[in-house]
């Protein structure tokens, strides 16, 4: 009897040990990981740095150069004679560069009104879960545009400052799921020179957009720019200024993103699509457009990060 009890006692010690050690290494790992939770940033809220007309919250990674060529054709209502607008192209060439993973700079030139533009973009907040929870991503954006078209009246005194346009945006976005993201963008466009006295120099606008991922490499985008009435009263090319509405597709291959879209705006940059859109969708004043971007990795960011770390260590050693 005693022996049986003894055997049972022994078994009671051994059994849990054996079974515990076997299966539960994985659950033990889970506990270890929970103790040291990491910040999980939402990646790729949008496929590229543009939604359609406007910027998205995305920036280029550190050391990444993006070459972006955008085309916007004439109105579809131009009919076969204008080849449905294709005879009348507005092209913008642009370069964007990621100085850090969060700070982006860019330059571009549009053939529309011979406009140069440059911008700065900074990721202020990044949506994350895990150790640090952040419901939204917020990116700050500012751009300047220089219209270099010849002055309509060269006899009067013209100032260089009259060629300048400024844009300030706060891009606020959330990736709701793997497939669905939304963005809201309060915007201010300042125009140094306006056509008439009853036009505001500083125009407020609110942009809203979203993307729905259809497959891993294909996404559907929608974007609307609301410019509250009463700010721009003079006609643009003889037509009332409208809110820009655009719909487009992102098609992704290895190193580039192809964007095709339809929009009632002719301009590609902020000041143009926000304050100079004069097409009406329901009348067919729609422009076809597409852009191609190509990514070049200028330098290996991991090696750069390693070097920075080494430098930091060296400095610490020197100090101590």
């Amino acid at each position: 009897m005693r022996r049986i009890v003894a055997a049972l006692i022994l078994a009671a010690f051994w059994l849990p040990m054996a079974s515990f050690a076997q299966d539960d290494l994985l659950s033990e790992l889970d506990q270890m990981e929970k103790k040291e939770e990491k910040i999980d940033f939402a990646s790729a809220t949008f496929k590229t740095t543009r939604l359609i007309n406007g910027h998205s919250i995305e920036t280029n990674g550190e050391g990444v150069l993006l070459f972006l060529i955008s085309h916007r054709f004439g109105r579809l209502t131009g009919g076969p004679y204008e080849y449905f607008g294709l005879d009348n192209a507005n092209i913008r060439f642009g370069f964007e560069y990621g100085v850090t993973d969060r700070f982006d700079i860019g330059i571009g030139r549009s053939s529309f009104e011979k406009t140069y533009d440059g911008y700065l973009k900074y990721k202020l907040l990044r949506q994350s879960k895990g150790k640090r929870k952040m419901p939204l991503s917020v990116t700050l954006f500012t751009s300047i545009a220089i219209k270099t078209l010849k002055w309509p009246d060269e006899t009067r005194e013209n100032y260089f400052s009259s060629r300048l346009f400024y844009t300030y945006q706060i891009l606020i976005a959330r990736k709701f799921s793997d497939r669905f993201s939304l963005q809201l963008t309060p915007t201010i466009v300042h125009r140094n020179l306006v056509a008439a006295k009853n036009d505001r120099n500083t125009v407020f606008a609110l942009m809203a957009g979203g993307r729905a991922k259809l497959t891993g490499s294909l996404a559907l985008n929608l974007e609307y720019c609301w410019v509250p009435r009463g700010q721009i009263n003079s006609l643009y090319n003889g037509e009332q200024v409208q809110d820009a509405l655009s719909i487009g597709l992102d098609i992704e291959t290895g190193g580039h993103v192809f964007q095709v879209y339809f929009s009632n705006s002719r301009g590609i940059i902020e000041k143009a699509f926000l304050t100079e859109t004069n097409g009406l969708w329901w009348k067919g004043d729609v422009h076809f457009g597409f852009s191609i971007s190509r990514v070049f990795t200028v330098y290996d960011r991991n090696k750069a990060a390693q070097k920075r770390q080494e430098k930091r260590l060296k400095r610490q050693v020197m100090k101590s």
Partner: protein
Amino acid sequence: MKKTLLAIAILTVSITAQAQKFSTRSGFIRFFSEAPLENIEANNRQVTSILDIGTKSMAFSVLMKSFEFEKALMQEHFNEKYVHSDKYPNAKFNGKIQENLDLNKPGTYAATVVGELDMHGVKKNYTGKGTLVVSESGIKGTCKFKITLADHNIEIPSPVKDKIAPVVEVTVDMDYKPMTK
């Protein structure tokens, strides 16, 4: 009789209490894809792993988003399009050392690990050959094995077929320290 029993019982308890488990939070895993157009390498230095020298079993867990690529875009595509990190955040491995090794003694041992890898929602058995170096301060473990992406339902779309190898080589390098409870 009672004394012998007691002695055995105490011994048993003391064995369980002794450090049989080793762990690391900064294990290293690299995968390497060699393809005609491009070689791709990704490093992960935040792997958590436990090695139990009593039962000779080991397990590791890898956060997929912690893989670092040379190109930011590659990293994004890896997470978004290939391994779907939002849906399957971790890859987990649970295996056993086949040889009958006494890992309490310092020395270098060749080991074969057989176990199951759970990645991208698919479980598959693997056998890896590696080395364990036991020293006073801990145990270093290294291992290499190959993963066929299709086995784990990871699809490579045709436009990038020339850039990503169908079989990638995985290198595991862990520096285990005795586990403190």
